[in-house]
């Protein structure tokens, strides 16, 4: 209802009923996401909202640690946002991705650096990009895969982050291929051993506990995984 010509008192001011809800959701999203540039991110948020796309909102609040100086600014939460936004398509346009990257107030250089690991033309397979992002997050292959599991899993947080073994093996191979240290034979043997362990369970899912032990290194992991899986 448009404002009447003459308003006499404060009670005549009309507030649209949807407004408080919108504002609340927006505020909550902002608090959770903690964007570096609120305006940029808000633009992204509202454009996604108007389009009906998944919103660039973190599910869990991650306090941005102040000591991040040399890293990409990329956090698992942000990756998860990106994944949420992009995973419905297998291939993602680079421009689109860039825009999303910007909306999350992530530095553009890092984006470029990421893409340099696996150069491609206009579009990139989303899973590849995700894998690259994960590798950027963690130091080793294992930690990258751990992040990947956590991002891709359907299980609730904190639970056994399980993803299909196929995906896992694909990503592992992909990253191992890019990483020159690890030879393909090792990769294959590792994957084979893991596969044995998982086949007993018959659901084809691999969880964190199968390959990742936070305090031990890779070799031990392999042995232990063999030991554990009977």
């Amino acid at each position, binding site marked *: 209802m448009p404002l009447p010509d003459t308003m006499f008192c404060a009670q005549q001011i009309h507030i649209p009923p949807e407004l408080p809800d919108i504002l609340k959701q927006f*505020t909550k999203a902002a608090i959770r996401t903690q964007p570096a540039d609120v305006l940029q991110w808000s633009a992204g948020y509202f454009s996604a909202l108007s389009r009906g796309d998944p919103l660039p909102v973190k599910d869990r609040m991650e306090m941005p640690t102040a000591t991040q100086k040399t890293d990409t600014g990329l956090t698992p939460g942000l990756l998860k946002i990106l994944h949420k936004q992009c995973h419905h398509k297998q291939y993602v346009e680079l421009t689109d991705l860039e825009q999303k990257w910007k909306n999350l107030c992530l530095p553009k250089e890092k984006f470029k650096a990421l893409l340099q690991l696996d150069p491609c033309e206009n579009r990139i397979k989303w899973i590849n990009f995700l894998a690259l992002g994960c590798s950027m997050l963690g130091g080793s292959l294992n930690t990258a895969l751990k992040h990947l599991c956590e991002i891709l899993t359907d299980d609730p947080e904190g639970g056994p982050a399980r993803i299909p073994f196929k995906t896992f093996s694909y990503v592992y191979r992909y990253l191992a291929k890019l990483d020159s240290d690890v030879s393909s034979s090792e990769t294959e043997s590792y994957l084979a051993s893991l596969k044995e362990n998982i086949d007993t369970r018959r659901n084809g899912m691999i969880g964190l506990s199968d390959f990742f032990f936070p305090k031990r290194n890779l070799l031990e992991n392999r042995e232990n995984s063999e030991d554990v899986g009977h």
Partner: protein
Amino acid sequence: KTVKSAKAASLVRSLPKRRRTYPGGAAGRSQEPEEPCAAVLPRKPAGRKCREFQLRTQGCWATDAAAAAGLCGAGSEPSVAPTSYAGNLPSRPLPLLSLLLASGNPCPWHYLHLSGSHDTLAPTCVKAKLHRKRGSLPPDMTSALTDGTSRAPSTYTYTSRPRALPCQRSRYRDSLTQPDEEPMRYGNIMYDRRVIRGNTYALQTGPLLGQPDSLELQRQREAKKRALARKQAQEQLRPQTPEPVEGRKHVDVQTELYLEEIADRIIEVDMECQTDAFLDRPPTPLFIPAKTGKDVATQILEGELFDFDLEVKPVLEVLVGKIIEQSLLEVMEEEELANLRASQREYEELRNSERAEVQRLEEQERRHREEKERRKKQQWEIVHKHNETSQKIAARAFAQRYLADLLPSVFGSLRDSGYFYDPIERDIEIGFLPWLMNEVEKTMEYSMVGRTVLDMLIREVVEKRLYMYEHKEETHRSPEPEDEPGGPGAVTESLEASEFPEQSMSQTQGLLLDGDYVQRTTYDRRSSQERKFMEETELLEQDEESAMRKSLEEEELS
């Protein structure tokens, strides 16, 4: 206070009584009644009461009852403190005076009726007495006092009780509805005709309906008046003053020393009033208060009254503030919950993995244990078997040793028993030798038989010879050459002897297969002849036996 008034009343009442009892010396006795009355008061409360009751034709019953009770109480007073009465002299008159003054308030009826009653009972004399008493009160006080003091120093008495002078001028008209008409009973309002009982809505309105019946009402009233007057007149017909002389009228005249104002003339004035017929009450007009104040006008320009930015500010503040606060709270809550859940799940994961580990270990343990059990069992079986085997071996060795010479002994014993035999030898033994023996026996038998037969023959011959000798008739024959053929013929004489030899003969014939045997038998017969002749009797017996054997052999042969 009514108590005391009643006291006074009783005093007053008792006065006439006393008068009656003491008819003479009325004048001089005016002082007395105070004393005896007073004296009576303390002593005979009961008597006083009954006097009251007797007099109780009129008057106020209610107050009288109270008075009676009070009097009893009052009467007890003097008995309680008799000695104090002398001191109370001055105080006593005062309360009585006040009481008498106050007597008008509680029950005017009481007082008036008193006077009225006295009027009706013995109006002239009592009034006169009263008046007299009143008149004589002041001068008698002192003498009464002195008398009282002299008479009974213990009890306080009045010679003349102080009391208020009654006003004879009745201010109000005596009501038409006198208690003459309606005798008043004391107490119960339930039975009071003046009190309306029952439905008030069903009361008869009567004269209200019929307005023009005022004439009738008046007539009724007049009729009532007349009736009353008649009644009164009848009462008045009781001993009263005689009719006036012709041409004169009775007039009440005051004959006392001091004239009194006649105040019982009631001033009557007729007044009339008229009202209009009843009208409906009109509705009340609306109350519109009067206008007060002044009218003033003003003009408002645009934008003066309402400034959006200013007005919206508080709204915005609230909105934004609330939103932020709320969202912050919610985010924190959600965060906390999510953290909680995440940690729960992590813990559960850990627990699951540990449990899996534990289970695995348990499984391992179980398998080890089973394996151990199995091995132990196996080992035990082996040992057991081993033992058994050794035992068996030992047993076998022992048995072997024990039965080592069993075999030779067995064989030996068997051999000894004759289980191992040469068949030919056996055969010879079984077959041949018995036969041989039989034959030998037979042959021997033959010879025996021969001999026997011979003996028999000889015996016979001898017997015959003997017989013949005895008889000397018979011819003897030489039995020797005819032994064999004449055997049967010679024997026919004696059955027994003949049969046997016959058989033997046949037997010997049968058996004489071999000539050697025959030879032998004959030879044997001959050699033994001499021997046998000696032993005839024995031979006979033997012959019998041998004959039996032969018969048996014969049977065997056959």
